[in-house]
């Protein structure tokens, strides 16, 4: 894939993601996994896992990962620039001239509707990843624990990711000896 194509693809993803990091998930699955077949669902899950426990904006972390996989360092930079281009122009415009527009009630209604559609898309995407990864009791236990720790326990995702990494390492180490 050429750098130009990579940039344009992430430009598209950056301009369609509304609602923060996770709203890019359905777009990533559609564009990268299904359409261009650059990465697999497993790789995408790995990237999202690492993107959550490393510092910085999740969407940028994920874009950098994918860009690196496609065209190394240059690809990483180009993909990240692709994600930020449209949002930057749009926000600068809003800050400069469109601010009154955001106060119209209809705009709030439109965005309330968009968010519901985005939530539905995320549900379907997460289910796709779930079906592929959670295949037995052990993986289900890890899935459920991570979910409960964050929602009910109020524990930071950083510690959940680190905990799961330690479990994986310990488990692998035990199996070997």
């Amino acid at each position, binding site marked *: 894939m050429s750098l130009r194509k990579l940039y344009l693809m992430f430009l598209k993803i*950056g301009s369609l993601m*509304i*609602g*923060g*990091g*996770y*709203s890019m*998930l359905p777009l990533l699955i559609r564009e990268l996994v299904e359409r261009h077949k650059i990465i697999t669902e497993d790789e995408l899950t*790995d990237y999202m*896992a690492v993107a*959550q426990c*490393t*510092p*910085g*904006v999740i969407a*940028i972390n994920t874009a*950098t990962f994918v860009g*690196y996989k496609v065209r190394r360092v240059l690809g*990483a930079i180009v993909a*990240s620039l692709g*994600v930020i281009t*449209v949002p*930057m122009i*749009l*926000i600068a415009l809003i*800050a400069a001239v469109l601010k009154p527009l955001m106060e119209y009630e*209809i705009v709030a*209604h*439109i*965005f*309330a*509707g*968009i*968010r*519901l*559609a*985005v*939530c*539905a898309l*995320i549900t*379907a995407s*997460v289910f796709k*990843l779930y079906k592929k*990864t*959670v295949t037995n009791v052990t*993986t289900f236990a890890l*899935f459920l*624990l991570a*979910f409960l720790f964050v*929602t*009910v326990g109020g524990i930071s*995702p*950083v510690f*959940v990711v680190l905990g*799961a*990494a330690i479990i994986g*390492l310990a*488990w*692998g*180490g035990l199996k070997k000896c």
Partner: protein
Amino acid sequence: MLTFLYKLLLLFVEFFKTGLFAVGGGLATVPFIRDMGATYGWITEFELANIIAIAESTPGPIGVNTATYVGYLVCGIPGAILATLGLVTPSVIIIILVAKAIRKYSDSYLVRSLFRALRPAAIGLITAAGFSLLLTSLGVSANFTRFTFSANWYSLLKFGIYGVFTFFAFWKKTAKIHPLFFILAGGAIGAILSL
């Protein structure tokens, strides 16, 4: 002129620090930006709340949107660009290093067993994030640590709309439709029903 350049540099450095230390995505940047407001007087608490609302409802990563907005308020277009680049730079550097390491050791037995446990946990985390996004979008506020819950009739209507969209996102005949059409349809329904 000198104070302008100094401000630009300061924006870059402050947002670089934010990008380096904010772990957990866009909203994790908020405490850092609040701190900037207190230290430099760049933004008030009220403006910050507005910025977050705008950042959440426009396209793009929330952290990037917030940085662009604050940068613009402080130094116009150059400020918007430098604040955003400052926020993004640490991410790009760190992830390139991590990706290099993963590539180098991807065949190693330990790295593979690490990811075998990490993958289901990551999906649990994404599910949790999606769940809290859904609650916010439905206008439901719930705190599971304190067992509090509040909603209104609109929440029920919104849940119905979410249900219909979810059905179409799963149904074989419509699942292949590009996400953009879901987004457009959501916007239209939101405007018609005054959600």
